[in-house]
Structure formats: C-alpha cells, structure tokens
C-alpha cells in the first residue's frame, strides 16, 4: 500500500509540476504548489466525487444521493486506475458496540458492491468498519448522528 500511495503522490507531483509550468506567477519553485488538489489524491476524490455516502438509522440501503456520489466515485476511479481505496463503514452511537461493527461493515459492503457493479475492479477496493468508534461529528444530536452513519472512501 505504501508503494501505491507513493505512486499516486508521485504522479500527482508530476502533474502539479506541469501545471505549474504554465503558471507564470509561480516564484517559489516548489513543485507541490498548485491551485487545486492533486489529481488522483484523496483531496481530489473529495472535491470531484465526494468521499462519503450517508445512511438512515440501522440501515445500509443506498439513497439516490448516495448512488449519485458513488457514480461519481466510480467515474473518478475509472480515471485513476492505479488508485486503490478503502471504504470505511461507520455508525451513530445508538447501537451496541458489537452490532455496530457489523452494521458499519454492512454499509461499507453496500458501497463496495455498488462500485463493483459500476465496473470498478474489486481488487482495488477494501472495506473496514469502525462501528461507532470513529464519529465524524463528535456530538449527539440528529445532525451529528446523520453525519456519523456513513461509508467513507479513502485513497490508500
């Protein structure tokens, strides 16, 4: 995974350097300076497709919004065929610790299966579940819980 990550970053730097070349205002000489996120990077995934889909309480069904996001993720992954991603499923804290490990995995699996159906090679995808132990929002109200019921795609 380290090598793959390095490859992705290396290519991003290369692309950044090319774009920098065209930018007359560059004066630092820093190859990393760029306007937007490096293509193929995590930040690029977030900006281009969105890195996460949200779920209803105790559910793993994909909403239309979720499918639209995953469609964009699939297109993005098609554009960067060397990129591997891990999909992490998460839950709000209104379930038990153990059940939520399985529920989070079920959510990650739902996103995984959708991406595969959209043509992403399964060998580029892994899943993990953090149950309720990695909440995006630290609070405990419906707004926080709705953010914490998710599957987050991360570039490896």
């Amino acid at each position, binding site marked *: 995974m380290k090598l793959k990550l390095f490859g992705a970053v290396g290519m991003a730097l290369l692309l950044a350097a090319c774009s920098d070349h065209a930018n007359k205002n560059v004066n630092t000489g820093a190859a990393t300076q760029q306007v937007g996120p490096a293509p193929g990077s995590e930040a690029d995934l977030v900006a281009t497709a969105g890195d996460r889909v949200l779920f209803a309480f105790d559910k793993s069904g994909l909403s239309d919004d979720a499918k639209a996001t995953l469609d964009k993720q699939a297109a993005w992954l098609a554009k960067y065929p060397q990129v591997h991603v891990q999909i992490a499923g998460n839950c709000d804290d209104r379930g038990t*610790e*153990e*059940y939520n*490990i399985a529920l989070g995995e*079920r959510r990650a699996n739902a996103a995984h299966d959708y991406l595969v159906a959209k043509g992403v090679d399964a060998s580029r995808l892994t899943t*993990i579940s953090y149950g309720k*132990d990695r909440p995006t929002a*630290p*609070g405990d*109200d419906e707004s926080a819980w709705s953010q914490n019921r998710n599957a987050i795609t991360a570039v490896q």
Partner: protein
Amino acid sequence: MTSSVKPLIPDDDAARLAAAFGRRGFMAGGVAGGLAATPLFAPGHAHAQAAAPGAEEITVDQARTAPIPIVLPSLGTGVAQQITDVISADLGNSGLFRPISATMPQGTPDFPTFKAMGARAVMTGRVMDQGSSLRVEFRLWDVPTGTQIQGTAYTAAAQDWRRIAHIIADVIYGRLLGEQGYFNSRIAYIARSGPRSHQVTRLAIMDQDGADSRYLTNGQWLTLMPRFNPSNSELAFLSYANYRPRVYLFNLSTGQQRILGDFSGISFAPRFSPDGSSVVLSVTRGGGSDIYVVDLATMARRQLTASGAIDTSPSFSPDGSQIVFNSDRGGAPQLYIMSASGGDAKRISYGHGNYGSPVWSPRGDLIAFARIANGSFSLGVMAPDGTGERILTEGFTVESPSFCPNGRVLAFCRQSSGGSNGAGFATGISTIDITGFHERALPAGSASDPAWSPLNK
C-alpha cells in the same frame, strides 16, 4: 459470656488461593513470593473439629433488604489501616453489609456490647510487618452466639496487601452469606483518551474496586471488547492492528499476543467457552456476520450460523450447552438462543426497542443485555426463556454488561450524551447489583468495555 467456642477450619478458598498464589504472572504485580493461609483456632480450643458454623440463615436477598451489620475495627495503623479500609469498602460497596467502625478489641470480643450495637458479626485481627512480607491474622465472630466462625493467618509479600484484604472480604462474604464472594477479582477494560472523533484506546486491567490499574497495550491501534478466559490467564480482544480488525489472544503471564484464527472478514465479539477450550466469535461476511467457534488446541473452526443477517455477541450458557446471541435476522436486532452446536435459534427478546450485547450469568439463571428504545439505552436482565425482563438502569448509553464471578453484580459502560458539539461526552465503568440497586461508578477514568475476571487464582 457464652463460649461454645468452635474451631476454625481454614476454608477451602484460602487453601486454594494459597496454593495458586505461588504461580502468579506479571500482571499480578511481579511478586516473587506466594501467599500462605494457615488456620487460627479459636482461643482455648484444641484443634481438629467439625465444620465451623456458617451463617447461612442470612441469604443475599435478605441482606439486600437489611444489610448485615458487621463491626470492622481498624487492624492498626499504616498498611493495617489500609487493609481495614479495603475490607470495609468491598463489603460496604456490595450493599449487603453495613460496616461499623469501632476501636480494636484484643482477644475475644465483647459480645454483649456488640450485640447491643445491633451487630451481627465482628472481625478481629492484627497485621504484623515482617519486612518484605506481611502476616495478617484475621478472625470472624458471630455476635449472637459469640463464636468464632473463621480464623486464618495470611502471609504474603508486603506489596500484596490489597490482595489479602480482598481475600478476607471474600471470606467474610462467604461465611455470612453462604455464597462465594467476588472481591478478589479484576476487571479488564478499554482505557480511552483524546478527542471523541479519534480516541486512543488501550487494553487495561485493574482490581475490581478500580485500584492498581495498568495498561496492557500502548494505544497504537483501536482496541475493543476484552474477555477473560475461565482460568484467568488470557484475554481475547479485538485489535485493529495493521488495519485488519481481528480477535487476538493476550497472555496475561507473558504479555504475548497472537491472532485467533485467520478469518477473511472482521472477527470480533469473542467469548470463551466455560471450559476454556474454545472461543466463540463473530465474523463479517458480505452484508452480515456469522458466528464461529474456534477450538484453541487445534485452531479448527466451526461455523454455527449462516443467516445472512448480522449474528453477533455470542455468549455461552455456564454449562456450555447453549449460546445466546444478537441477530437482526428478523429485521431489527434481538436476542436469540441456539444450541452450542448451532442449528435452530429461538428468539427470546420481545420488549420495546432493539436488544444487544447479551451475556449469560455464571449462575445460569439470567441473561443481561442492553436495550435501545427511543434513542436511549437500558441495561436489563431476563430469564433464558425470555420471561421476567427487568430493567436495572437507564441512560444515554449503558451497555457492555459483564457479570462478576458469582453473578450478583454487573459491570457495564455508562456514557453521557455529547450534546450538540460533543462537549458533554463522558465514558466510564460502573457496577450495579442484579436487582438494580447500588449502582456506583468505578474510579477507572475514561473507560469502556468492562470484562469481569473469574476469581483470582
């Protein structure tokens, strides 16, 4: 004064504990010496006798309503006072005793005075500092009859003074209630620190009263769900080591960890079988999770469920013949029971809301669980056939129940709501009597996932 003085038989516990203390692992504190227990006969009595009288006319149920008044005079200053305090805290916190402090009587207690105070029993004793070791002489007297019902001298390394105090508290519990106590035991748990969105979690262990806590892992990886094996020598737990969440075994003597089986899915929610020969756990597959049992001698695995749903949180009955578990096969998470060899499962939870985290009492008569309804948690118990459901306590989050060795008390995790920004979040370990009384927070700091050990060996 009455003086049908009866002898003092060293009770079985003391002898067993003494035998076992010689092989303590590093978790017990790295003590070189063992703990010896020898009988102390009642004054004026000449050895070998019939069994000492118990006090079994007092049941735990009676003591719950009317805690047993017991005089616990200070055994002395310094460590002797500390030992007295631990004994008094153990007994008092159980809710079954009402410790009464008094000045130290030497020799045979002044029974009429103690009787007038309403005391049922009195402890006497003394602590002798022998440099690196301690000798603690302990006697327990029945006030109504004026008889000594226990007398034992314990000798152990000086740093083991807490252990001696817990053993004495267990002997008092056992002699007066006719049941084995649970004070000489530990609780494994997950110590938590850092921001809620990414808490550092360490496997940790402490005495059942919260003393002597120590970390077993360094917090590098997310770590959850510790469970003791029946011989108290190993923990099963979930570690996210190398981002591959799997069940591991942690040897409490050597500190070594090894993965349990090599499952392709996430393995989690482990529990040992009552005979310690196997571990039952849950493994994710597709959109669900299946229950497996892994034989520890051969590492052979057997799949017990394949419902396609989430089947998790398995827990053996104490006779090893059945397993209670959590499943959403019917649509929402509920509790089910099946044979330990798998097969048909029968749903046992029918109350309002979702159920989870079932654990079978070591007495066999109850299953404790967490229930979630209307956005908040309850902790309860029910009979294995699903009848007699009782809620013991409620809260924003109350989960992960774990029975003490004699099944009379549960440890659990209590968490408060984070509110709109997370500032209100707190997580800790509490204990509660299985009747719902005597809830108290343990001084474990920010913690979750309590797992009560068997009695220490």
